[in-house]
């Protein structure tokens, strides 16, 4: 019969069980009891905990390749209802196994422990995330994030999102803690979009997209969702990006509504009210499909309960209404999802063409005056892979950076109930000047890797994408036939 065996698809993870037992935590001394695949890692400790399970930090101990490389291992709890691998895990694996982009977290391995029916996803580890970066600036260093860093983070976030949307994937849960940033090393300062547990392929859903539960943390939730839209689009992610952009600028969440917890899928009036307070009320004139939304019909009195006269996004984010960043932000926070700017359009926005230009290392760049030493993630070194606590005292693990922000163990304020993950490996270089490659229609042909941005996808020849297929099959002229079609998300919205 089967034994638990490590599978290793693209990184040379080595055979694991050889090499020194170079453990940093005290609970690996019983390594003979560990499944074989686990012996290729040294467990450092627990870095996160959520409803789905636990996240651990580990290092590869293979003597030959990637030795010492940090890996984040997400362990999915066995479901309590006796229904096997959680659909969330299935969905995350399914998507991550297909996608590959510099700005998307990289799944390096999946492991199954047949003995206790648990599932482990191994990701490249990312030391930082936007939640911690923002918090550090707000609470510790007392100055805003540099313009270069904000712009680079935003550009890379949009770049990753454009890749996802071009491939019909909506993330649905973008928030600062899901946007990872690589720490020291070759990929320092590279953004990685993480946590695909709620992501959906929206090309051909078998059910309305709203069917499988709550999406997107309420502060970053788009108004169409708050108003009860059943079918929604990639524009919900762009709203979240707008909120994150504003938060990077001001270090404060833009719309901090108080969440209504019950009943399931409750009407989040306070969140809407926070939005209206800044942006004013939406109107059917500006948003024609607004009257069709369930809560607009049912809760109009509540919605229009307050009148806000002196609304002004510009004063909240301290930007001139004529400035390029304000223009971009306001287009991300457009009420009508059909008019909201797309990731692809945003990448071409003037904001990214003016100084300082965005760069690959968002944390260190020519125009960054003071390089900020962000704290490393707090690690609870008292747990083993089972999540059981040993008697070891907790100790912050430092890789040379300041650990000022680290909390002991998992019970400090930094341990939010959200996945804290991981990141990646790819080596593609990004093009700092607004991604001209996306505008070219001549090179999207059949071959992977013909795209100068190194993004392995083709828009033109998808046999599965609606009109594109017909157009493609119909072309007799080979030169025309090879041309790529830009993604047509805008026209397909709603």
């Amino acid at each position, binding site marked *: 019969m089967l034994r638990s065996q490590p599978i290793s698809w693209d990184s040379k993870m080595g055979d694991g069980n050889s090499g020194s037992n170079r453990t940093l935590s005290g609970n690996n001394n019983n390594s003979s009891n560990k499944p074989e695949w686990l012996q290729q890692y040294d467990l450092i400790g627990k870095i996160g905990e959520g409803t789905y399970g636990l996240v651990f930090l580990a290092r590869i101990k293979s003597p030959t390749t990637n030795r010492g490389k940090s890996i984040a291992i997400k362990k999915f709890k066995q479901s309590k209802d006796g*229904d*096997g691998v959680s659909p969330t895990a299935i969905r995350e694996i399914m998507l991550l*196994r297909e996608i590959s982009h510099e700005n998307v977290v990289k799944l390096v391995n999946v492991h*199954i422990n*047949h003995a206790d029916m648990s599932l482990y996803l191994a990701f490249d580890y990312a030391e930082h995330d936007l939640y911690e970066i923002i918090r550090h600036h707000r609470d510790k260093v007392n100055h805003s994030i540099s313009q270069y860093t904000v712009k680079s983070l935003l550009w890379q976030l949009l770049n990753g999102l454009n890749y996802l949307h071009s491939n019909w994937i909506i993330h649905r849960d973008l928030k600062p803690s899901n946007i990872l940033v690589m720490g020291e090393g070759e990929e320092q300062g590279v953004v990685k979009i993480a946590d695909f547990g709620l992501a959906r392929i929206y090309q051909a859903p078998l059910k309305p997209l709203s069917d499988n539960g709550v999406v997107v943390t309420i502060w970053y939730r788009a108004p169409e969702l708050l108003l009860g839209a059943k079918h929604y689009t990639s524009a919900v992610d762009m709203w979240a990006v707008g909120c994150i952009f504003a938060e990077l600028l001001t270090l404060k969440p833009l719309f901090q509504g108080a969440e209504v917890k019950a009943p399931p899928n409750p009407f989040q009036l306070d969140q809407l009210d926070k939005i209206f307070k800044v942006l004013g009320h939406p109107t059917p004139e500006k948003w024609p499909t607004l009257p069709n939304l369930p809560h607009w019909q049912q809760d109009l009195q509540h919605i229009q309960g307050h009148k806000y006269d002196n609304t002004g996004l510009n004063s909240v984010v301290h930007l001139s209404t004529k400035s390029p960043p304000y223009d971009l932000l306001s287009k991300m926070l457009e009420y009508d999802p059909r008019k909201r700017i797309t990731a692809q359009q945003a990448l071409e926005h003037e904001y990214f063409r003016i100084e300082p230009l965005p760069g690959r290392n968002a944390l260190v760049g020519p125009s960054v005056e003071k390089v900020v030493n962000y704290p490393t993630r707090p690690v609870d070194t008292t747990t083993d892979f089972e999540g059981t606590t040993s008697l070891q005292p907790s100790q912050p693990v430092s890789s040379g950076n300041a650990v000022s922000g680290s909390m002991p163990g998992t019970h400090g304020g930094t341990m939010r109930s959200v996945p804290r993950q991981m990141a990646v490996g790819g080596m593609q270089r990004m093009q700092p000047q607004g991604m001209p490659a996306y505008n070219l229609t001549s090179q999207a042909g059949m071959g992977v890797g013909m795209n100068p941005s190194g993004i392995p*996808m*083709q828009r033109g020849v998808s*046999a599965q994408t609606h009109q594109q297929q*017909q157009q493609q099959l119909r072309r*007799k002229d080979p030169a025309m036939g090879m041309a790529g079609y830009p993604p047509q998300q805008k026209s397909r919205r709603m």
Partner: protein
Amino acid sequence: MAANFWTSSHHKQLLDQEEVDVVHPLDKERGITLDDFKLIKMHMATYIWRLAQFVKVRQRVVATAVAYMRRVYTRKSMTEYDPRLVAPTCLYLASKAEESTVQARLLVFYLKKLYADEKHRYEIKDILEMEMKILEALNYYLVVFHPYRALSQLLQDAGLNDISMTQLTWGLVNDTYKMDLILVHAPHLIALACLYIASVLREKDTTAWFEELRVDMNVVKNISMEILDFYENQRMITDDRIIAALSKLKP
């Protein structure tokens, strides 16, 4: 890519027919022939479909489940991976992947209803254990593309989207899952082959339409021939042959 066939793991994993038609050494030892192998997979495809009728999932979930089952047997033996457990588990896993989750206990309930004999006494625990083994056997590649989407677009484009043609071609596509076509050919080519057969059967002239397509008609015609051969051979398949083949696995 998750939504682009050409960059998907599905496309990269397409196999040659010769690679699909390999009987695992362990199964050979038990006397399973290539014919037996194909017969059992066909039988299990039908079985998945029947089970799906009870638990009420959409055709795409069935199609994904059958594709999983066929992929598993390009790597694993039927001796070690009993088809009678693999088939329902593939449906279980596909229901999660296609966002139409079916509860394991419901599946087990109908399993027992469908087959009362001892060899199908599987419990929830068996399904859950096999689910993980199947995930492993599939190397965690779970996205499957199907001909249905392409089919409706093509029918419309050819102006053949009347009820009669739609039903006929849809039924043909369903039947292709009794074969290994989904492991070998791109889904839109399978759809075109079904459309081709249907247009010949219904005497629709699609010559000009097919000529305008940028596809290799030889491939489409070869797939069509395979499908027609399958229908021809299927007439000679009896329950006895299926039972005989299955009994070699569990004497």
